[in-house]
């Protein structure tokens, strides 16, 4: 099940929210667990086994490392290895078989592709963070397996993050309240995320998909409009999901951390990764980079640490060589920034911003293209500066036809909403009734537009015609 589906919005969420607040507090965690498992198992019930196995492994590992015994490190390593083996099998085995198929073709012909469980990268990392935090003494292990199950499978953040550290919600786990303010905030945040996903991300996705899927029609104009569309698509899609997750968490009394902080206003790659998918970058920082020594080591070792982290980051994102190259690309950029440029570009902010956006867009080509060779071909055409009439026409058609979406999409990457809120606070409007009314009307309009778009996206006219 996904948030932007009819079943979730019209059936699952109203029932779950209604039942949650009717139930007594002591039954709510159990109810949320059942709802989360139902949510996860909706499209592929059999994959619940994978989730439950992950829960069981992390619960047992947590209990075992929450001792003062001399084997606690062994238990931790065993738990992490099991998590990684499961992740490797489900996420990377098809890729590994494809990669070695030229050397061992008989393996490729006999291999039955493995189905990828939804969100496995997220819940695996979430489970590992729990066991590591228990090992470090940051949190106590949960004695009740249902609590671990709920923590890992909580549906607001299960399939697309943010990766929630248990220590950030430990106090809320058994002792939380959903105030009216939290419910209201949660509702607004959810609607903002839903509209980002359905109205903006899906529209830019259509443009990007159309262009990336037809290499024969790539030219200077279409490649730039295609990557610009993808740049906006991935931001609004991912940040939209995070908004929805945070909003739903707030609904149920949880405070999830921010996952995106207007990353496209960054003036350096370093800053970009402090603003983009924050829960993942901090996960790698806390559980890989710092244990390796971080930056408090020799330069050679530091370079090694950075490259390991970014290799893993690339691999986490997808099982293909293009993702690994993407990760290495950022590792190299960060090292160049650290040791060569040393933030000089970000002193002249517009220059820093433009160079960062350009480098990020180049990275997105690696991320989006079907294969590495397609990505290279795309980039060559993108920087060919060959203006053709056909390319100009395609560029202008996509620009003019979707002008409204481009306008909203490009404005939305800047913290306009924050500016409005700050302005209203300074002027004293924020706590007034008119502000609340306007904001709520705006939210209801967005909700209406999102639902209209969701219903209309199912429109599929089948007409015999040839023009």
């Amino acid at each position, binding site marked *: 099940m996904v948030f932007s589906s*009819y079943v979730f919005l019209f059936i699952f969420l109203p029932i779950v929210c209604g039942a949650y607040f009717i139930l007594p507090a002591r039954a709510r965690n159990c109810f949320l667990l059942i709802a989360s498992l139902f949510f996860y198992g909706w499209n592929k019930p059999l994959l619940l086994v994978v989730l439950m196995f992950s829960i069981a492994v992390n619960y047992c590992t947590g209990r075992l490392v929450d001792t003062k015994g001399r084997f606690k490190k062994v238990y931790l390593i065993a738990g992490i290895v099991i998590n990684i083996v499961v992740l490797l099998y489900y996420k990377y085995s098809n890729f590994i078989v494809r990669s070695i198929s030229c050397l061992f073709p008989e393996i490729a012909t006999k291999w039955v592709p493995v189905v990828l469980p939804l969100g496995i990268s997220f819940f695996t990392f979430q489970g590992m963070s729990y066991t590591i935090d228990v090992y470090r003494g940051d949190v106590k292990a949960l004695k009740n397996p249902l609590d671990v199950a709920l923590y890992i499978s909580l549906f607001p953040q299960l399939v697309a993050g943010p990766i929630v550290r248990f220590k950030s919600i430990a106090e809320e786990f058994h002792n939380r309240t959903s105030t009216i303010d939290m419910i209201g905030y949660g509702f607004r945040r959810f609607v903002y995320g839903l509209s980002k996903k359905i109205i903006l991300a899906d529209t830019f996705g259509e443009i990007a998909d159309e262009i990336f899927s037809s290499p024969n029609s790539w030219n200077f104009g279409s490649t730039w409009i295609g990557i610009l569309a993808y740049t906006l698509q991935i931001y609004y899609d991912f940040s939209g999901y995070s908004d929805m997750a945070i909003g739903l968490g707030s609904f149920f009394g949880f405070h999830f951390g921010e996952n995106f902080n207007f990353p496209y206003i960054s003036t350096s790659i370093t800053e970009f990764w402090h603003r983009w998918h924050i829960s993942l970058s901090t996960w790698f920082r806390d559980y890989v980079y710092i244990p390796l020594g971080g930056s408090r080591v020799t330069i050679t070792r530091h370079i090694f640490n950075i490259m390991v982290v970014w290799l893993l980051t690339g691999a986490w994102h997808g099982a293909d060589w293009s993702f690994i190259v993407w990760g290495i690309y950022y590792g190299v950029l960060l090292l160049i920034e650290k040791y060569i440029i040393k933030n000089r570009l970000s002193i002249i902010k517009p220059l820093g911003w433009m160079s960062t956006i350009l480098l990020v867009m180049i990275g997105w080509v690696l991320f989006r293209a079907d294969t590495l060779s397609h990505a290279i071909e795309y980039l060559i055409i993108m920087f060919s500066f060959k203006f053709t009439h056909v390319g100009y*026409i395609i560029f202008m058609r996509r620009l003019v*036809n979707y002008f409204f979406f481009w306008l909203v999409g490009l404005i939305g990457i800047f913290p306009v909403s924050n500016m409005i809120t700050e302005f209203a606070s300074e002027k004293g409007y924020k706590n007034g009734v008119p502000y609340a009314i306007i904001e709520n009307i705006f939210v209801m309009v967005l909700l209406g537009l999102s639902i209209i778009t969701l219903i*209309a996206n199912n429109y599929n*006219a*089948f007409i*015999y015609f040839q*023009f």
Partner: protein
Amino acid sequence: MLSAAVSLIKTDLEYSIDENRFLAQFESPNFHNVIDGTWEDNFESYSLDQYALRSKVLKLYFLLLDSIGVNERNGIVRGREGITLGLNSLRNENSQATEDNYVIPRLDAMMVLQSVCNETGCKFISLQIPYKFDYYADYYPALYQDGKNINILLQDSLTKRARDNGIDVVDTSNELLNNSEYVYYYTDHHYTYRGAYYVYRELLEHLNETYQEKLTFPEWGDCQYHMIHEYFVGSGLKKFGYSGRKTKDHVEYVIPYNMPSYLRLENGAVSNIPLINETRNAYSMFMSGDMANTIVRTDRPQLPTILYIGCSYTNALETMSVYSFDEMHSLDPRHFRGSICDYIRNHDIDYVVLVRNDLYEGNPENIASID
């Protein structure tokens, strides 16, 4: 949530006229389809298709898109005066390869039919009808025009090469492209009944001149005139997304006052449905829409028999032919599952008319075997 509840209890709709497709129906869950996830996927499609306010939501959605200037969607662009025009018809680059890709499959089909007609002694005619997007070529938005329309060049090339191969081609381009009357719909890809009338008249003139026939059809003004379906919504607009705004399209037709009595067979079964059935939706008003095989007999053996082979562009021609010919046969290769050549051999046909021939480009799987 209220609308979702209503959706679950209301009677399900089977078919969407606007989308020309069957809507998803509720599928009973069982162990297998729940475990493999197909039931859940179907339930999502079913819920969206059967949403209680779906048609209103769709109209509102398209109205919103219209208001923010989204003029291209689902492969259709809206040109001047709200005319819907296809995008896959735009061919911006002419080359020998483009020309060969266009001409060769069409010419091959014509040659096969010509051959079997020679064998059986009937006459084969290729009836060229220009595309709607050629008629409205100047109505495309500026960004969709690159200054040249090669489609006419391609059709001219096909006509020339067909005639060079001894094929009798009736090219109605001049008749229609220079006609300022309402000959093509604004929101549909078909020509109007009036457009079909001019094409039919040109066909009859050609048969009379070339084969010394005395075929007639009354003047437009001398027939019973009917206009129905004011604000007709054509298939182009349905694909684009219809927002509920009234269109300039309407459906009109004429019936000669002295139409002969006839016996009509649809796919071999006798049909009592009138030739022009106003109670059907506009798309299938003429000759019940696209039938695999239709035969209309008028028991006038002194008149010739005609066979039309083609897509929906034959429908209006068929109704007029009942007046002029003893028997009118039609085959729609998209639905007819037999051999067209065998059909010609097994029926006493005088004239075989291939109406347009776009069916033979790039989509052979759905086309009946010619051979």
